């Protein structure tokens, strides 16, 4: 009898423990892969800004001058997009949901002092490299100038040596050295460009 069927379930339920968690009394339970909230390890973060760029809701902001990473936890949709795109793996997803708050404000996180020093060191090295690259480029430019001057001289001498040559040959002879010097200059410049990048 179906009527008795559900009565049986109800009677059983009378003597069972509640199906719900008694949350404030006991701890809330989460699964291993639950997407709760985003955590940033400020010891590793380099403030590259990729998370800010990829966040679909624009919840993350980065201030490179103040060296802070901020998130508006109530705009975050826990999509895990920033975690996937983090090049330094400093972002991770914690299991616990965002804690309740009285305001929808932004939460700022400062870089740790150690990480600030690391970043400052990196910036100094980058500046040095840039300065070196600049010098290399200057040298390259100087060399190029010298080359073109030499090339022009060579062309002039070629012209003076063969004044009776036909006009077409004269044009080719004049064009060839200038092309060669141009490509040489390019080759010299490329390593300098790579350094500055």
């Amino acid at each position: 009898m179906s009527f008795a069927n559900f009565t049986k379930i109800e009677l059983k339920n009378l003597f069972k423990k509640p199906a719900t968690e008694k949350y404030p009394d006991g701890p809330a339970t989460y699964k291993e892969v639950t997407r709760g909230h985003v955590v940033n390890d400020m010891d590793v973060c380099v403030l590259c800004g990729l998370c800010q760029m990829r966040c679909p809701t624009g919840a993350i902001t980065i201030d490179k001058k103040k060296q802070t990473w901020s998130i508006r936890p109530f705009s975050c949709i826990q999509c895990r997009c920033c975690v996937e795109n983090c090049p330094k793996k400093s972002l991770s997803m914690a299991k616990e949901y965002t804690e309740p708050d009285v305001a929808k404000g932004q939460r700022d996180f400062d870089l740790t002092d150690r990480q600030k020093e690391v970043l400052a060191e990196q910036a100094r090295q980058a500046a040095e490299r840039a300065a070196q690259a600049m010098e290399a480029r200057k040298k390259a430019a100087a060399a190029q100038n010298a080359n073109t001057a030499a090339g022009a001289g060579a062309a002039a001498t070629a012209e003076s040596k063969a004044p009776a040559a036909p006009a077409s040959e004269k044009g080719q002879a004049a064009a060839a050295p200038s092309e060669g010097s141009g490509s040489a200059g390019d080759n010299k410049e490329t390593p300098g460009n790579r350094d500055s990048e």
Partner: protein
Amino acid sequence: MAGKRSVIPFGPQHPVLPEPIHIDLVTEDEKVVEAIPSIGFIHRGLESLVTKKDFNDMVYVAERICGICSYGHGYGYVDALEHIMSIEVPDRVQYIRTLLFELSRLHSHILWLGLMADAFGFESLFMETWRIREKVLDMLENATGGRVIFSILKIGGLRRDVPDEVMKGFIPELDRIAEEIKACEGAFLLDPAVQSRLRGVGYISGKDAERLGCEGPFLRASGVEWDNRTRGYAAYGEVDFEVITSKEGDSYGRCEVRIKEIYQSISIIKQCIEKMPAGNHSVPVKGFPNGEHMTVIEQPRGGACYYVHSSGKKFIERMRVRTPTFANIPALAETLKGCDVADVPILVVTIDPCISCTER
């Protein structure tokens, strides 16, 4: 003798469902003679967001069209774009997608059973079914990391792999769910008090249902064999299942179809876990979509169409979603004619209305 006609407004706020649909019930004595539905209370303009969001980020918006069918909406959008960009996703992805689709169908149908029990005033049955649903949500959370919005789909595959051990762990859990549903099934299908509320209420013939363009369990309950899963998208072509129909055509039939579909979903999930191939969980995607495609899938509530048109830019030009509830509203208005005012809430629930989907 015809009584005096009066109009009773139903909704947009009504205890039976939390979503806003308004129906003007023209009544004569206790009988409804005409029902005029109107929607438009929760339009959010999500489709037009497609022109302002990167097409990769739009997956998140598509998933948020609705909370209960979130997976299906995400799937429809991703599938349409994968067709446009001619991306071949690995077999493993297809199987995991099918598995998740059936899990979401499972939780949607169990949710509906609870809502139905609540509509005919069986409070403890409502709580029992929702207790069972909680286990399905736990499984989904184990697999994807989210309970309602899974955020696992991306163009070109899945954003994270679901480990085989996790999926193997679903099998005993699914058996337990099947047992518990079996215990509750009697209360829905055999209980004389419940049957008196369901039998013969809101009858619609198969012919009428087809003519009015019904979808999903609502159509199948009238004996029409129509299930978009038979088209064989994802891995549906490789698993065994039959289209479930009922000859009743009334609220009882709709209940029966959905309960049987719960068992069917469980069987499809088990088949997917057994046949699960190894492989990558995503393929790299390059370039921007250029072209148009229409994807038709079977959501828990019925067939849904996703049309995407794009012209090789970062932003897609047009996206259109036709949801099953939208297709079922004309038939709802038809079935409401001639029923008692007291049966209106039950009838509105039998189409499994999802107004947020309908208006987007």
